[in-house]
């Protein structure tokens, strides 16, 4: 028991150091690398945020959502339209986008939430496509059709601090990703996270254990969509333009891959998955024509040798350590 404890302690010390090291690396990186790579890392951040948002729905609850880009589109267009027509500051629109995307998710998912597995998958594909096509068709002349909406402001905190270059955007997105990770880790370790996992494991047993399956599924969709809305807001303010083709079905598939590659329900896994999806094409730019081929082969090999993802979530002692180690010792 004592030995075990020591090992655990060493593990957690090592883990803490790893986290601190990675954090320091992220902070000093922009001073080392050139602006192009800072931008690449910014998009890595956007994908990480989107991956984390889809991870709630797909990873934690096991709901197949292949229309997740639709939620991001709602967030991005909310930001774009409200900013360009009414001049509302981007930073205020950040929560507004989250709420509008969440509300949209609640509205469209309420009637379909009881669907299982592949049936839900098909409906969400349809939903994502409907969002994209609607934006493309320029309803009431507010979405600008296939040209999209352009001339979106940079995020600014009053007039003192404006996020206006690559480096600032880099810090901005990773700050939000960092906060999101903290929040999601807390959620994972709460009764909400457990309820989600129970639903993923066995829906009927979850319902019979006293978990309101419908409510928690909807909650996952709303939270996931809200986070995707946040990502949409940042994306829109970075590019200063939003157009429907950014939110294609292919992008939703990429998000799906991020969660599957990384490991369902695993936050570090999602970060690795996002890195793979966003950095891979940049690193292999020289082999541009073989990119998809390599990517496909890599996916197949991964699914054969690590079906649980690169970094699957490990459940067990470390999550409950402080209280239970003590109790365990008393009982031998």
């Amino acid at each position, binding site marked *: 028991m004592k030995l075990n404890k020591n090992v655990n302690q060493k593990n957690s010390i090592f883990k803490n150091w790893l986290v601190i090291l990675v954090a320091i690396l992220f902070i000093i990186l922009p001073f080392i690398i050139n602006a192009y790579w800072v931008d690449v890392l910014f998009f890595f951040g956007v994908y990480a945020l989107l991956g984390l948002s889809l991870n709630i729905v797909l990873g934690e609850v096991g709901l197949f959502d292949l229309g997740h880009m639709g939620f991001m589109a709602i967030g991005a267009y909310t930001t774009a339209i409200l900013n360009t027509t009414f001049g509302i500051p981007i930073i205020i629109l950040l929560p507004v986008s989250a709420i509008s995307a969440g509300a949209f998710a609640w509205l469209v998912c309420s009637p379909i939430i009881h669907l299982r597995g592949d049936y839900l998958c098909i409906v969400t594909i349809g939903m994502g496509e409907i969002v994209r096509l609607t934006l493309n068709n320029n309803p009431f002349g507010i979405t600008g059709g296939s040209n999209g909406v352009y001339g979106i402001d940079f995020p600014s905190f009053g007039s003192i601090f404006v996020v206006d270059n690559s480096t600032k955007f880099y810090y901005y997105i990773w700050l939000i990703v960092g906060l999101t990770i903290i*929040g999601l880790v*807390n*959620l994972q*370790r*709460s*009764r*909400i*996270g*457990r*309820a989600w*996992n*129970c639903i993923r*494991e*066995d829906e*009927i*047993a*979850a*319902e*019979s*254990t*006293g*978990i*309101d*399956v419908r409510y928690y599924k909807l*909650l996952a969709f709303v*939270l996931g969509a809200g986070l995707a809305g946040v990502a949409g807001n940042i994306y829109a303010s970075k590019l200063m333009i939003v157009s429907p083709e950014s939110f294609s079905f292919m992008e939703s598939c990429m998000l799906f891959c991020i969660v599957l590659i990384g490991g369902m329900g695993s936050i570090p896994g999602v970060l690795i998955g996002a890195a793979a999806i966003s950095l891979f094409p940049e690193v292999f730019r020289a082999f541009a024509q073989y990119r998809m081929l390599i990517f496909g082969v890599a996916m197949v090999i991964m699914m054969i040798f690590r079906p649980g993802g690169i970094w699957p979530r490990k*459940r*067990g*002692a470390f999550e*409950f350590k402080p*209280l*239970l180690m003590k*109790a*365990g010792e008393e*009982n031998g």
Partner: protein
Amino acid sequence: MAKENNNMETIIRTKQENEGKNKINKVVLQTDKLTKKFGGLIAVNNFDLKVSQGEISSLIGPNGAGKTTVFNVVTGIYKADGGKVLFKGEDLAGKKPHQIIKKGIARTFQNIRLFSNMTCLENVMAGQHCRSKEGTWSSVLQTPGQKKEELEIKKNAENRLKQVGLWKWRDELAKNIAYGNQRMLEIGRALATNPDLLVLDEPSSGLNDKESEDLMDFLKEIIKDNLTILLIEHDMNVVMGISHWVTVMDEGKKIAEGLPEEVYSNPQVIEAYLGKDEEEEE
């Protein structure tokens, strides 16, 4: 036929009252003319069941008699087509399973349904879900109230896990522990919801004799804790060993009820289980 049944029941009841074996307890769960149809098939037909406080009641019958269907209607997984389910005098019609759990009926499944990729402790903690209330934002922000409740959940889960004797497996994934232990874990999870009535669907199936005996002792132990148990069982040893009251059903109908010994020797029950003696038929 029905009249005969009634007569027999009254005989049994009076006999039992005379003997004073069974003090008349408060009825916790009652089904009143419960009916459930699947298409043209009537799985449960005007079924009356009474479960008294603090007792172990068993529901037995041949395969396909509709026992599990009764359980599923009582726990809200199926909707009844007719009749009522009363729990502590309250009609459970239209209630969803998670609401029924909150009222105090917990169940286990015939084919074990655990959260297999979660640890044993997490499985039992999940049982505490309906007795806790902290929401999304307090969980994200880890407010003091949420931390306190989480600690409370862990403590209760710890106690329940020790009660079913699986404390040493707490960090093991539920799918990795032995079959008998999985059964106990499922019971532990049901107990973690702090139920008044525990509904067990064939708890001894797949267990060896030793494990069945341990299970019987365990059930006898836990009803002392102001708990009532309703049990579906095939293993006659278990039924006769621990039941205070036995109800027999066949083809969706109640064919007998009474004390275990009485039911055991009831010709109708024997007939339902073993088939009619052909000579007698002629």
